[in-house]
């Protein structure tokens, strides 16, 4: 599959006059692909004969990263010294280590090796992941402003340490439960706990965060030259907030992290942004703040109701609050308060208008983090909290919202992107379209579509991160992002062109690259969904149409930028991508291939968590009766939920505002079939 994209670049390699750069690049990518295959073969071998090979595999497993690092260092072309080679080799080695660790059989081998036990989970690991960047940001405050190199080095080191610390997460077979569970009382009077844990869904988002942030930081050090101290502080604080929000299971804690992310991003856009930065930053802030305060009100109401029902016990624990069931009219309000704050973050039409402004004005690193991670807060939040806490109403509105996601997100976003003159704005609108797919997959709520949605969250992070990074590269050289100012860049910047086209292809969803798998899963899932009423077919078609539009707007932009004659004199002297940018973008491009060729790496870990979410969703969504009462599901942590939903009697007296589901009658009685056709 990897070779499929290369013919289109080969002519430019030969015309560039500097083929020395590109050949090793492809050799490098090929090596990675080979490595993937090799690891898979090794893994297979182990499954057959675990006892004898596990020891050998452990040795080989530890050698592979070193081997890859050496090969990459050797492959880097002649003109570059150790300062380029070493980081590239390091990144490649780390990458290999990641893959070796997250390979499904790797976890199995580790399990077998440790006498049939799950590898020991360090309960404080997640706190370390949050604490490292937080401590780093505080340490930055006490460092001299006059020593930018020290500040930058500290920031990168802390981020890489966080990345390294996240590796043990991959060694655990996630299954259906939560892992690395840490639950400490924080404020006893309100029942607020510091409760963090991770499952197969948040795992990948955390990995994405710790993976993208160092890249964003590294690339930013090339273009940000003012107020380095504040910049490093904001980056580290943001990383801590993002990781915290993905692993928090106490609603209060989640809210705190959610708000902690806000200020650094606001400052990033407002201080280091473009000409209209202040307006964009304020818009970003006020939109998010308005949504999050509504969410806070709903959280308060949930906790209050819980304490009223249980007779005084206050809690903000997600699993405890999940047991509450509200009458429909109340649930709509609560659902709305949560959903609107997530929709703003996603962003869904019509509350998406802050996004293009924020992206256009934000500095490159800000855009990368915003697109890659912050937007996922919305989709993750909807999946975890809206569907977890209010499944009835979520199911009821799924069809309508699916329509909004298709029309307002996928199609409208794509059409807007098509009309943009500014490359960065184009990529921003393409984000609206891509996030539309994610939301559609979540609304469709079949196993395939949700897994596709989660995969697409990661894919979008990697792809759009790379695109923003590459747009930043050209902006640093030309200080313009207008499509009309470019043209024929393929002749002067061949490597850059190759990378940009690979990222574009990934964004469009060309098979073999990462975008394809997610979109495919989402579209098939939508077609098979029974949650979208009678319109799921139309929505699937709409979503498929979006793929064509994506090709249209992305390829138009590529065509205008890279091909045709060079119309501007300034463009004739542009230098190709430099070592720093290469080092930053290489892991993203590698990730595109890896995720495209071996999506099972991620999906295997998700199965359990997605299944758990769907069982919750189905069980609650079908429950008759209403009223604020418990349903006695064994929801406590650590206990595995039985596959069959617990028997729940209908409430003694159905309240006037009872539950009614628009699409319940049209469903087959079996109901639980996730992949069957709805009607």
């Amino acid at each position: 599959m990897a070779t499929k994209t290369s013919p289109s670049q080969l002519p430019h390699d030969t015309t560039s006059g500097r083929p020395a750069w590109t050949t090793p690049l492809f050799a490098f990518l090929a090596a990675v692909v080979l490595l993937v295959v090799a690891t898979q073969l090794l893994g297979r071998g182990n499954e057959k004969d675990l006892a004898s090979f596990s020891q050998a595999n452990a040795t080989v497993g530890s050698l592979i990263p070193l081997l890859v690092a050496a090969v990459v260092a050797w492959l880097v072309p002649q003109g570059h010294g150790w300062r380029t080679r070493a980081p590239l080799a390091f990144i490649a080695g780390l990458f290999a280590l990641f893959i070796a660790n997250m390979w499904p059989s790797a976890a199995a081998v580790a399990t077998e090796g440790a006498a049939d036990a799950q590898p020991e989970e360090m309960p404080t690991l997640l706190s370390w992941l949050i604490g490292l960047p937080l401590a780093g940001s505080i340490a930055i405050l006490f460092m001299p402003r006059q020593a930018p190199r020290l500040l930058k080095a500290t920031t990168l080191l802390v981020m890489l340490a966080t990345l390294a610390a996240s590796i043990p997460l991959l060694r655990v077979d996630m299954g259906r439960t939560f892992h690395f569970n840490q639950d400490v009382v924080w404020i006893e009077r309100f029942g607020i706990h510091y409760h963090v844990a991770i499952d197969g869904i948040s795992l990948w988002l955390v990995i994405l965060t710790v993976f993208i942030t160092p890249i964003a930081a590294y690339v930013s050090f090339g273009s940000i030259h003012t107020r380095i101290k504040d910049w490093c502080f904001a980056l580290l604080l943001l990383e801590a907030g993002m990781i915290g929000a993905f692993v928090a299971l106490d609603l209060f804690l989640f809210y705190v992290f959610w708000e902690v992310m806000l200020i650094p991003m606001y400052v990033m856009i407002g201080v280091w942004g473009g000409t209209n930065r202040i307006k964009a930053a304020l818009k970003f802030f006020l939109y998010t703040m308005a949504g999050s305060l509504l969410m806070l009100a709903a959280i308060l109401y949930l906790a209050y109701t819980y304490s009223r029902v249980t007779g005084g016990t206050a809690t903000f624990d997600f699993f405890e609050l999940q047991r509450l069931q509200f009458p429909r009219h109340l649930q709509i309000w609560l659902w709305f308060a949560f959903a609107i704050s997530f929709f703003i973050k996603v962003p869904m039409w019509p509350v998406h208008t802050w996004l293009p402004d924020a992206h256009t004005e934000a500095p490159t690193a800000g855009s990368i983090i915003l697109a890659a991670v912050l937007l996922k807060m919305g989709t993750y939040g909807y999946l975890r909290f809206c569907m977890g806490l209010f499944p009835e109403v979520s199911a009821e509105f799924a069809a309508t919202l699916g329509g909004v996601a298709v029309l307002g997100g996928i199609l409208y976003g794509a059409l807007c992107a098509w009309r943009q003159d500014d490359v960065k704005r184009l990529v921003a609108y393409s984000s609206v379209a891509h996030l539309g797919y994610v939301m559609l997959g979540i609304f469709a709520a079949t196993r395939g579509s949700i897994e596709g949605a989660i995969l697409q969250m990661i894919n979008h992070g990697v792809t759009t991160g790379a695109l923003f990074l590459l747009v930043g590269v050209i902006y640093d050289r030309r200080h313009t992002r207008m499509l009309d100012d470019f043209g024929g860049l393929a002749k002067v910047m061949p490597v850059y062109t190759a990378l940009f086209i690979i990222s574009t292809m990934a964004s469009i969803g060309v098979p073999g690259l990462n975008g394809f798998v997610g979109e495919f899963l989402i579209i098939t899932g939508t077609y098979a969904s029974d949650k979208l009423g009678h319109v799921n077919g139309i929505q699937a078609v709409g979503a498929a149409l979006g793929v064509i539009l994506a090709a249209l707007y992305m390829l138009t932009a590529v065509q205008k930028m890279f091909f045709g004659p060079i119309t501007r004199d300034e463009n004739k002297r542009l230098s190709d991508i430099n070592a720093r940018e290469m080092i930053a973008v290489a892991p993203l491009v590698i990730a595109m291939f890896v995720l495209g060729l071996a999506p099972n790496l991620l999906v295997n870990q998700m199965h359990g968590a997605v299944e758990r979410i769907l069982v919750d969703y189905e069980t609650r969504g079908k429950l008759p009766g209403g009223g604020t009462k418990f349903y006695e599901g064994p929801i406590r942590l650590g206990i595995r939920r039985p596959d069959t939903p617990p028997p729940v009697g209908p409430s003694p007296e159905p309240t006037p505002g009872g539950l009614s589901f628009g699409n319940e009658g049209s469903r087959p009685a079996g109901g639980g079939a996730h992949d069957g056709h709805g009607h």
Partner: protein
Amino acid sequence: MMALAFVLSPLLILALGALLLMLAEALTPKQNRAAGLALGATIVFVAGFAFSVGAWLYGVEDVAERELLAPWLVIDRFTIFFDGLFCLGGALAALLAGGYLREHGLERGEFYGLLIFSTIGGMMVAAAGDALMVFIGLETMSIGAYALTAFRRTSPRSAEGALKYFLLGSFAAAILLYGFALLYGATGHTDLVGIGNAIRAGGQHQTMILVALVLVLVGLVFKVSAVPFHMWAPDAYEGAPTPATTYMAAVVKCGAFAMLLRVLLTCFSDQGLMSWAAGWPPVLAWIAVLTMTVANLIAGQQESVKRMLAYSSIAHAGYLLVGVVATIHSMGTATASVLFYLLTYTVSTAGAFGALILCGRKGAEAVSYEDLAGIGRRHPAAALAFSLFLVSLAGIPPTAGFFGKWFIFRAAIDAGFYALTIIAFFNSVIAAYYYLRVLVFMYMREPAAGAPIATPMRSGYVATALVVSAILVIALGVVPSLPLDVAVEASEKTFAAPGG
């Protein structure tokens, strides 16, 4: 007797300290007065705070002798909590004054004497169990505050603000007194508990009691500077020297809320008067909505940062009134939420005014937003401190202000006031806008060429005040358990019986 002296010690210590300070001021040669007095006043306040903590730990429930003072001064946990809070606010104001007055050539010893005696008035108000005592305490507190407002004698704005404050304040005090007089006429009592019992018992003077209630409410609400009785506040706050503003925004406002809670919950805790249908709660709820909305909208329009902070202080009174209204359903929790909010508000607002003081030296004060442009780059420490306090005032976690708001909103939701809570939420968003504007100017704008810019002053006093406030703001935001327990204990042990 010793036990009584001990639980009364915060007040006594302050009185003694103020007398000693005045003596010291009179006896020291003029050129040496400068440095010592601020330090002395701070020490007096810190001692008062320490004795409050001591009295709290000692416990007031078992002190039989406190009956000697009842019903004029009621010494309970509520009183002790406010004693500590006033001393904290007073200490911060004294520290700020130590830097500010010297920088601006206003250094005269009366400031500290007025500060301490006015604080004693606040303590009397918080402890007052009798209508007359409420009035005496209120006047003691207010007259000090009037004088502090007018302290910059050469400035017309200062005089204007003080005169407005004085005239309207006396008028409101007269209305309050009139209300008390009617209450006395209707019930035959001047002690608050007696009035409350008489009202609960019922009688033929219902109309008179209602009229009295309106008058008392007006008087009380004037003191907390709620809309539409807020007209004096922006001018007085802006005209006063900034440490005096800090004092008014922190201590005087806390005193007014102590009085409001004590009078409403003791006198008017009758079932009928506390009901939503015929009592003070709906009136107060409307005032809260008006206060929040109007103050926030006007604050967004201001060009002067100090005036913006003045309006923000009015808006915070609105949030606090939401908590006061919530007392009708859950007296203990809601009162505790008001107390805790007052604590977080005191440290945040004192810090914000302190940061404003630190940002400007004589001749280059930070007045308008433009003055602050680019200060984040020129003087990062001052800007960082200012940002922290503004973030806390805006109520963004993990700072003190967030937990204050959280507790208030939680109490309001517990009491079932959803609409009120949502309005308060939206007001928080509006408020975030103008707090952030300061951040925008400090970090994202550069001053126009030739425009006047603020240059920070150097003062150990101000720096100390800021460091203390900053530590408290972060500590209250991260580990609020202990102060929360204290606030809950203070209110639950005092106002135990809900609904009368």
